[in-house]
């Protein structure tokens, strides 16, 4: 690889505009602005791009995961889709058999699952960045009143539980989990 990208991958939440080429004093050479908007990118335009990217990188979810618990015949959950900073996966997988780079998931009990992430992932340039889940939100699918709760168990694991409107665990329900 000819160069190593500046900074660390997005999920470290450390991106700043200067790493993208932004600078508060950035200017066009000799103050000569864009000559042709179809062929040129001005310093002012590039500065906006860098600042907006900095903002996006701070708050974009690391992963959005939709899965279903397998409780009637107890098995690890089935992961349907993962939209992640490390990739997108539309192919169903069992929680214990994740594709490379995607989280695993284990069944704790009815509608009760623990997801395990790697402590570090690599970006497309093979730059590694530590991943620690700081925030998570989960929600239930379906037509009945249900509640989902999350727990940040450790630096690499988080747990999601589902409850019905009586406060007891449901079975075989589908959830969407967002992780930052």
């Amino acid at each position: 690889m000819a160069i190593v990208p500046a900074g660390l991958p997005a999920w470290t939440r450390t991106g700043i505009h200067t790493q993208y080429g932004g600078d508060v004093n950035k200017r066009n050479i000799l103050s000569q602005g864009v000559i042709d908007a179809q062929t040129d990118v001005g310093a002012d335009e590039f500065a906006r791009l860098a600042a907006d990217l900095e903002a996006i990188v701070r708050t974009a979810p690391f992963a959005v995961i939709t899965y279903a618990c397998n409780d009637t015949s107890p098995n690890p959950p089935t992961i349907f889709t993962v939209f992640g900073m490390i990739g997108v996966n539309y192919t169903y997988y069992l929680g214990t058999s994740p594709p490379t780079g995607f989280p695993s998931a284990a069944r704790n009990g009815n509608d009760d699952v623990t997801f395990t992430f790697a402590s570090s992932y690599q970006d497309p340039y093979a730059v590694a960045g530590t991943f620690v889940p700081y925030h998570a939100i989960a929600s239930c699918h379906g037509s009945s009143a249900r509640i989902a709760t999350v727990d940040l168990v450790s630096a690499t694991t988080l747990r999601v539980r589902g409850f019905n409107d009586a406060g007891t665990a449901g079975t075989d329900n589908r959830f969407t989990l967002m992780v930052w």
Partner: protein
Amino acid sequence: MGFGAFCPMPLRLGGSSLEGLTPEQHARICADVVAAKRTVPVAVLTYTKSGGTITLHNYTGMNGRGLAYAPTATSISTGRTGFSWSGIFEDPYEITYPINLQHGVACVHGATGIIAIVTIGGTYAFEVRTISHAGTATDCKVTVALS
């Protein structure tokens, strides 16, 4: 090509994949950044409310990462917390714009079925209520995402 020492800015689009930035690539960057800007949260925070005490665990927002950038939390009553900002975010170039929250979702942490409800606007920038499955206001740990 107008890159490098003789013409650093404005960038002249074109060149090779190794030494340039083609119009097609730049157009894709712009389109993807705009798409991401439309849907990524403005802020995500996790806090615990215990009686009148609110502990903010983590905050990441478009205005910055860390508790120094977080909104001020106010305990309203059991299971009810209000959050307020100055009302304006500033980007790295000191360009400011009012925060205009439109959406809020929240989720409770823990082993008990508790519902979290977000209200945008009113006395506070946003307010979070946590209610047990039986309908009782309950203090707990919550993650909130705002956009």
